[in-house]
């Protein structure tokens, strides 16, 4: 009987620790193996069959059906430019310039990786067809000054993804340094 308890406790503890470690590592695989550019992180292994198993699992959970980086570069920010986790109760101003690409957009997601339900049915900022200038607000309520706004209320630990479809070669050559918009926290509720 003692030997059964001995081995059973070993296996159950091992499985429990394994599941906990897997969950922890899977949730961090995208950022841990990613390419950092200010608050933005990207990864050239999205959709790639040769990607490490943990990254594939992480992408399946947080970015299913991503295209390979040769088609689309996805930059996602989970923090502001000061490194603070993005929070749905705070107001952020995103300003700068989008890299040279065929088309681009910014989309806001909640902590569950889904679009955040809002009355305005507004989820993204799509490119200006003539300029690459970026200037919009992420906040729980509409900004008093107007302008492009992504509603964050109810999103919890939010994140924002910049999609670059068919970017110029210069972007691929400088994934860590290509200028990307800053994310500045203005205030928190």
């Amino acid at each position: 009987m003692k030997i059964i308890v001995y081995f059973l406790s070993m296996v159950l503890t091992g499985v429990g620790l394994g599941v906990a470690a897997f969950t922890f590592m899977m949730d961090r695989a995208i950022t841990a193996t990613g390419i950092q550019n200010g608050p933005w992180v990207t990864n050239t292994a999205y959709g790639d069959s040769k990607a490490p198993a943990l990254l594939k699992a992480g992408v399946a959970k947080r970015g299913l059906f991503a295209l390979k980086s040769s088609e689309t570069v996805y930059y996602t920010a989970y923090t502001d430019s000061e490194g603070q986790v993005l929070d749905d109760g705070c107001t952020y101003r995103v300003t700068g310039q989008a890299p040279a690409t065929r088309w681009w957009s910014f989309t806001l997601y909640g902590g569950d990786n889904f679009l955040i339900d809002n009355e305005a049915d507004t989820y993204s900022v799509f490119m200006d067809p003539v300029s690459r200038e970026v200037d919009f607000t992420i906040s729980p309520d509409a900004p008093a000054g107007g302008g492009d706004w992504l509603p964050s209320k109810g999103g919890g630990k939010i994140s924002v993804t910049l999609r670059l479809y068919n970017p110029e070669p210069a972007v691929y050559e400088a994934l860590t340094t290509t200028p990307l918009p800053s994310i500045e926290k203005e205030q928190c509720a």
Partner: protein
Amino acid sequence: MIRVVFWLAGVALVAFGTVQIAAHKMPTIIMAGAMKKLEEGYGADVNEFGHSGPITADNQRVVRPSPDLAYSICLYDLTDGAVAVTVPKAANYLSVALYDMGTNNFFHLNDDEMESDLTRVIILPAGENAGSVTQLSSQAEKVAISPTNEGLVLVRRVLMDEQDWPMIEEERKLMTCEAVKPN
């Protein structure tokens, strides 16, 4: 003391094995769940296109969708042979991406890379005999070998403006996804 060391080593080994198994199985499990949701959400049978309307918080089926894209999907099954996908060259960005059951994006093609106004892609199961491959290849602009018998065709068409929808509906009439046999 030996029993304790052996127990700890055993726990570490089981934990390591659990991580490896979970990491390798998770994409397939998530993919299977997503396929089921897409099949229900898009109302499309296997080897048939289904199309999305505007993506909102109320109708999103999988994580991190883009509201700036019009999606079309075909859940393919190669059990009985090849599947052919036909897509038109759209007025704006359009891409065809193929995903196997391990979530790998093993093929993609965008409108700039399409050589004709109507592109036909043949999806073949891995291990198809060389004769069939040659014969079917002659019927298509592109050939893709799917690592798994089931998978997903995902067509993304950029939505530059809400007024694009009538044009997108016309483009969709030209899309087909169907089982094919060698002549």
